[in-house]
């Protein structure tokens, strides 16, 4: 069996990831003594933890009924809705914020409607706005993760439950709850850590310096004070928070232990009566919540789409190239680490989670310091961007692959061994078919994220190397808000097309 080889390669990968994340801190001059936090840093830490915890809890609480409803109901447009769930997550931050403001802002659709009926408006600015935006980004992601959880329950378990005459409540207790116990902590961890490093959303919707996060404190250290060691210390704090959250999630998470199924089709039972109405309401509410800001992004961008500057196509090409390369690197790494983690290697999971807490500003600055003596920064712009995008998107790919990789090991390893399957045959006949669905979803997500993520390109890019997100930023900086909205729409459409293509491939392959 290839277990040993997988473990070795995974160990190499984990070491490379740690080096990539920690070497920049060293380059910034991290000092080991004096980890005390100033008053301002403490209040930034408090706000960061508060908003991240609220965002994670609310995203997950809302995601459970949505995922359950999607898992057990068939309706027209279900596939389209599931695909659209990937969209908020891949929106460039500023585009998403303007989309949210068009709906929930002071002059947004909801407040306009309320005013038309003579009702008092509400303000999005404050903790509520930060959490709203984070839920908009992450709830759909959580739904997809939970949905995979539901789909991974062998259909035989539901049949058995039906023949034993389980009520919906009994199904929930004996089948759904163990699955949630396995999947929920990991999903919550991902959302919590993503929100830990939030900066632009937190500041813009937080309504002012009360909403200072640790990432903003890092920004201040690097830009305002040019205090590199402080930036490194705060970046380490983010990693420590991420590691602590990981340990908590790993403690809570329990394997569901359903055992293997025969790969039959058939999801959870769809109870009738009032539960049907509730499911319909849940789906409609979630669809509206996601679709309205996306519609605003579409309406903002459509008018200028015809007269975009010619330079968008070159930029779009570069972004696509980066996306494909990052996806190849990230998915391969995630697969290896997920298989290693499925064999019970905790370090593999931790190494694949830590990049979530990386501050891309610190990463970029540190890498710049390390590489600049040897290379011209502009020569490295595209490769560094690919590598960083791959590393930063690895946690998502890993989280999506892990539950099913674990099931795969638990259920098929002995069978594979007894059939003498090794190496390529095991991967070809067991790993790929069983993991195709999550792999397609993960690849789509990584590709789309790599399209949209500004990452470090801004720190390295020279003349004629602009990617699409950088071009959007430049258009905005040149007062061309309408053209920027259109270029952003193009970016979103391309990201979404990539996401959809990979996701579709995964679902086709899995069902074939």
């Amino acid at each position, binding site marked *: 069996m290839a277990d040993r080889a997988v473990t070795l390669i995974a160990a190499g990968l984990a070491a490379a990831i740690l080096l990539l994340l920690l070497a920049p801190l060293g380059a910034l001059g991290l000092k080991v003594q004096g980890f005390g936090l100033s008053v301002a840093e403490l*209040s930034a830490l408090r706000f960061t933890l508060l908003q991240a915890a609220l965002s994670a809890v609310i995203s997950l609480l809302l995601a459970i009924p949505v995922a359950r409803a999607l898992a057990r109901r068939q309706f027209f447009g279900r596939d389209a809705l599931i695909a659209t769930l990937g969209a908020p997550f891949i929106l460039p931050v500023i585009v998403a914020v*303007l989309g949210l403001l068009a709906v929930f802002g002071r002059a947004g659709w909801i407040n306009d409607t309320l005013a038309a009926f003579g009702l008092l408006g509400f303000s999005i600015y404050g903790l509520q706005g930060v959490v709203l935006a984070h839920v908009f980004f992450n709830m759909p992601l959580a739904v997809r993760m939970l949905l995979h959880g539901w789909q991974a329950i062998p259909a035989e378990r539901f049949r058995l439950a039906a023949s034993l005459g389980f009520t919906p409540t009994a199904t929930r207790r004996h089948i759904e709850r163990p699955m949630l116990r396995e999947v929920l902590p990991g999903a919550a961890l991902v959302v919590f850590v993503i929100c830990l490093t939030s900066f632009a959303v937190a500041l*813009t919707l937080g309504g002012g*310096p009360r909403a200072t996060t640790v990432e903003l404190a890092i920004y201040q250290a690097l830009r305002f004070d*040019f205090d590199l060691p402080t930036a490194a210390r705060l970046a380490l704090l983010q990693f420590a928070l991420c590691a602590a959250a990981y340990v908590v999630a790993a403690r809570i998470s329990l394997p569901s232990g359903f055992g293997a199924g025969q790969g039959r089709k058939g999801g959870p039972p769809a109870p009738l009566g009032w539960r049907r109405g509730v499911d319909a309401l849940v789906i409609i509410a979630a669809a509206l919540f996601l679709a309205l800001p996306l519609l605003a992004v579409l309406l903002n961008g459509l008018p200028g789409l015809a007269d975009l500057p010619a330079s968008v196509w070159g930029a779009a090409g570069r972004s696509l190239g980066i996306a494909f390369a990052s996806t190849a690197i990230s998915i391969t790494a995630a697969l290896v680490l997920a298989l290693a983690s499925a064999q019970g290697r905790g370090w593999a999971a931790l190494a694949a989670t830590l990049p979530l807490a990386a501050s891309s500003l610190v990463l970029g600055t540190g890498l710049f310091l390390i590489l600049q003596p040897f290379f011209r920064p502009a020569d490295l712009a595209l490769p560094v961007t690919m590598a960083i995008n791959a590393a930063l998107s690895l946690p998502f790919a890993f989280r999506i692959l892990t539950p099913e990789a674990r099931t795969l090991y638990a259920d098929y390893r002995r069978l594979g061994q007894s059939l003498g399957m090794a190496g390529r045959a095991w991967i070809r006949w067991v790993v790929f078919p069983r993991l195709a669905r999550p792999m397609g979803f993960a690849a789509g997500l990584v590709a789309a994220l790599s399209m949209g993520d500004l990452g470090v390109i801004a720190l390295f890019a020279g003349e004629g190397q602009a990617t699409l997100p950088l071009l959007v930023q430049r258009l905005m900086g040149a007062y061309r808000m309408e053209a920027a909205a259109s270029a952003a729409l193009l970016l979103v459409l391309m990201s979404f097309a990539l996401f959809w293509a990979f996701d579709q491939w995964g679902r086709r392959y899995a069902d074939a």
Partner: protein
Amino acid sequence: MRLIPFALAFTALAQTAHAQTPDLQTPVLNVLTYDSFTSEWGPGPAIETAFEAVCGCDLVFSAVGDGAELLARLQLEGARSEASVVLGLDTNLTAQASATGLFAPHGQTAANDLPVPYADPNFLPYDWGYFAFVYDSTKLATPPTNFEELAASDLKIVIQDPRSSTPGLGLLLWVKAAYGDRASEIWAGLADNIITVTPGWSEAYGMFTAGEADMVLSYTTSPAYHLIAEDDATKAAAPFTEGHYMQVEVAGKLANAPQPELADQFLAFMGSDAFQSIIPTTNWMYPAHTPAAGLPAGFEQMITPATSLLMSAEEAQAARTPALDEWLTALSR
């Protein structure tokens, strides 16, 4: 597999080396600047063409986010920088920039047309502007005429964070220069007018044009963009009786410049009409020397503040940290 990026890096290196071989005779002048200067809508491309026509050299811009990132980048690169000229710092950053010891005196003697006297041995101004609150005159008939009126009104404004944005820092120093010890009180009064604070200028201006705020912190020349480029006369800047804080954008020569003569030639060229006439409708600021042909039509409609406020480089350097603390305290309440 992890080798892919590195393989690509070396391919990229090889290609660059290859591309550069034929022009070994043509010297390359590297200018480090901020992103919006070199974008295709900024002054960069036209200035590159104009300068290359007279210098017999290849002018290459490298760009980072904005003025503050420019300084950070320079400090990261130190004496190893490939750049000969740094263009895009403002006077709030020049004390810190001089203190790095990376700059050499520019030695230029040409005068400038700034409304306040400005001279610095290391830095030459290339453009300037006034910070101002911009509003839509079809929605707001009588804009406030000073900070106290603004604070007393129920107008909603969006500003930029001084920790991450140059205009944000400009506003901080504006209030400090105008009100001194009363700055805290002014900020406390403004707290309920500020709907939010954005990381950079783009987000704030985007929110304003989307109708989220009544006023946005920008420049007195911002309405010129809408007037000239979009034929839209509805945007205006509100004149404030305290006076308006200035942003003076400067360039300097690096002490370790690989091309010191070309750097001198570029700094001299910066004062010429060829360079200065490009500035108004690309950077949307006032040129440091008014070109012989005057300013483009439309600029005469911009407000002219009665008082120009500007701290010296040393004052700005000394004021920024205490002013930031005041700002944080007043707005965090």
